[in-house]
């Protein structure tokens, strides 16, 4: 028996590894079970759905079905609203993300690299604004929304649709947190680089386009991820605006709430299938941004 004895530090490291692995495993199990349940249930046949006690997955291979995914698209022989909701969600989220990135980049650039009167006051105001819970703004925003709608007398179907979505998108892009992330990153760019670009003859626009933005790639990815999830999951405000509108105007998150609560539509399988679909875009965005995002977290000094 010539077993290699571990040094003390190796032993501690091993112990730490085991402990952290166990804890992480337990936590991830707690998080993953609902997801697995969702995934499994979406493939169950109608018979399986009524089984008691419930199971995570269909009980036998023959019971697996994609009927509910079919039900996601077609209901009672017609194309269902569900794909439309998905589209609504996707375009409004993409618009929010694009606008947020542009607005945040421009604001952060101005705050960090330009000198203007009242810069510090503006910054303090923005920080203060971040401390106000967004729910507080809901009632006044809604009042504003409806009075502007009355004033402009927006009644037509398409007009109303775009008016509502304008209001869904607009508050999303005014988040201060993302701008602060950007500002932190810009602060970390050495001033000499900007100065040297200036003396090379670059205007603010070309400094912004050719030097600052390419450097900010990873932070932009981070902001894309944050805004995408935030906007995709946004429920309260769209629900408020969309209530009473045509049902095909809903976003997917608003629609998903239809499956819960008293007036549930009862199709558990379809509900789960919808959830799976609702998850896909987030998953895709995460996969795309995750590598860059980790860089972004490291450089902006924000701990997730």
């Amino acid at each position, binding site marked *: 028996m010539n077993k290699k004895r571990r040094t003390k530090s190796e032993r501690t490291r091993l112990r730490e590894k085991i402990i952290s692995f166990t804890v992480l495993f337990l936590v991830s199990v707690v998080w993953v079970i609902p997801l697995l349940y969702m995934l499994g249930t979406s493939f169950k046949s109608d018979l399986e759905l009524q089984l008691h006690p419930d199971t995570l997955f269909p009980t036998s291979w023959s019971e697996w079905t994609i009927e509910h995914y079919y039900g996601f698209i077609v209901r009672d022989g017609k194309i269902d609203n569900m794909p439309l909701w998905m589209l609504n969600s996707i375009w409004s989220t993409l618009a929010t993300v694009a606008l947020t990135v542009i607005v945040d980049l421009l604001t952060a650039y101005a705050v960090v690299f330009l000198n203007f009167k009242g810069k510090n006051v503006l910054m303090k105001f923005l920080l203060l604004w971040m401390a106000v819970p967004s729910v507080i703004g809901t009632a006044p925003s809604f009042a504003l929304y409806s009075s502007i709608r009355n004033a402009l007398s927006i009644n037509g179907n398409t007009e109303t649709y775009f008016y509502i979505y304008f209001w869904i998108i607009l508050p999303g892009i005014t988040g201060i947190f993302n701008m602060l992330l950007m500002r932190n990153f810009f602060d970390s760019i050495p001033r000499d680089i900007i*100065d040297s*670009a200036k003396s*090379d*003859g670059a205007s603010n626009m*070309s400094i912004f386009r050719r030097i600052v933005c390419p450097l900010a790639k990873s932070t932009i990815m981070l902001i894309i991820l944050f805004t995408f999830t935030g906007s995709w999951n946004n429920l309260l405000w769209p629900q408020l605006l969309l209530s009473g509108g045509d049902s095909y105007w809903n976003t997917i998150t608003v629609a998903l709430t239809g499956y819960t609560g008293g007036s549930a539509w009862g199709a558990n399988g379809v509900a789960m299938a919808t959830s799976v679909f609702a998850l896909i875009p987030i998953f895709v965005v995460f996969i795309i941004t995750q590598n860059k995002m980790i860089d972004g977290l490291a450089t902006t000094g924000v701990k997730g």
Partner: protein
Amino acid sequence: MNTAGERKENRTFLSLQNLEKIYPNGEKAVYNFNLDIDKNEFLVIVGPSGCGKTTTLRMIAGLEDISSGDIFLEGELLNYKPCKDRRMAIVFQSYALYPQMKVFDNIAFPLTINRYEAPVVNECLQSCSLLRALMRENEASKLFEALCGILGGKGGAKAKAESLAEVFSLTYECAGRLVSLCGRYAKQSAEQLFLQKEQIFAEWEEKLSAWESAERAALAQKGIRLDEKFCELDENGAVKTQMRRLTPYEIKVKVFETAEKLDLTPYLDKLPKELSGGQMQRVALGRAIVKNVPIFLMDEPLSNLDAKLRLTMRSEIVKLHNRIHATTIYVTHDQTEAMTMATRIVVMSKGFVQQIGTPEVIYNDPANIFVARFIGSPSMNVFSATFDRASSSFCFGGLNIPAEKDFAQRCREFYLKKEAELSALLENFDQAANESMLKLLSVTGEYAETKHRTAAKNSLWANLKRRVSKASEPDKYEFGRSVCARKLEQIRSRLDSDFELTLGIRPECLKIRMHGEDSAEKMCITVRPTVCELLGGEYNVHFDYNGKGMIGQVDAKNKISPQDEIDVLIPAEDLYVFDPITGDRIR
């Protein structure tokens, strides 16, 4: 005032007049900076950190606002010109390369941003003539081979045109036309083409003349005339010019030219992070050179390099300066760099210019004690000695060093002059007087006191208290006035008694010998060295005398160790005499 200023500017290249900088927090970084810089000068601004040298440079570059004063470049006021229009290139200590761009793009950046004045060229006619020259001058077989090589390769028409332009050094327009000329023969090999050479050339010639005549007709219709280089002429027969961006081809040529000058060609495809410090600094220099501007500003460009590289880069920069005939303003805290590179040195301390002069003047004839101590390595030995009026000699420990005969007289004159100056200041104490007091303190190094006091005065609590009590603003110049009064008193007490003076002597002027060799000299001190540093060719010998640490330099031929006793001779003619009150040199 204005006309006088203008007359002055005509002579000088870059002129800085009464330049001052006050930061928003009220701190004054640069006081009354006056300097005229000639063309092709290598000016070094040197001083300890925090003395305002970088601020001055940034003001010249336009990166920092000017609080008061003017900058003229060839008689043109620069104060309100944005940084990009100042025709200056700046090199930073941190290199400031754009991290996401390759070396090529880094150097090309200024070229892609700016517009340059260029004559308006009729590209159609120019490319026709270029193509004719191509057909005439190249051997047909080689020409076809090269053409087939490129046109048969991968890439779109644009990429092919680019590589053609590079191979035959044509303009892009011209290369594009060449591609269209070759369009019919794309599928054939070079030999096949060579066989039908006559036919091809005839066909090309036909096409070229067709293009030419069409273009000439169009020009005649518009009434535009051209000169022999296909530049458009205006009504008076002068060449028309326009501001335009450089074409990618022109940029490429310029970047490669610059890279060759700096031996950077192998690194053009790399990112800055893959380069070493010296290479990064060369890229930064390249970016400055490629702009082709008359003034180079360098902000401690060598401070981030290791000692050996610094030495080579130092000579590189000087060589570069001589080759491109630019005016260079170089900021450093390293006095060796200043002495070796400069044609003229500006020594600064605490925001004040202490002395301006050539390296020889600065070294051999320092204006005050600050300059004397700052320049020179190892720095000057400074000690205080009593001036004995009766024997006209300096007493330092047991040593009596004879002063020059008329020294007492000169000393008296010096103090009388100072006394008159200070009492005039004290009588009417204003902003300027306060500043001259601050300058005096910057020389003697008693500055810390005032900084502390202003900080206390500006603190929030003090401000509040002042506002609440509505007390009258305290005397702004209180401190300056008290300093002035104190100095004046000290000077008056010196007019008629023996007093202490500060003497300085450069380490290499001390004559060091082994003890007992020739002890006939009177003015010798005999000491044991505390440390002997062998530098290779010479020793730095540290020793204590009269409670004062001193350094001498001696040839390494004589072996000296801390056990030996040495004789140190202080030659009277190499002594510098400073007034300890004002720090000025008594000449």
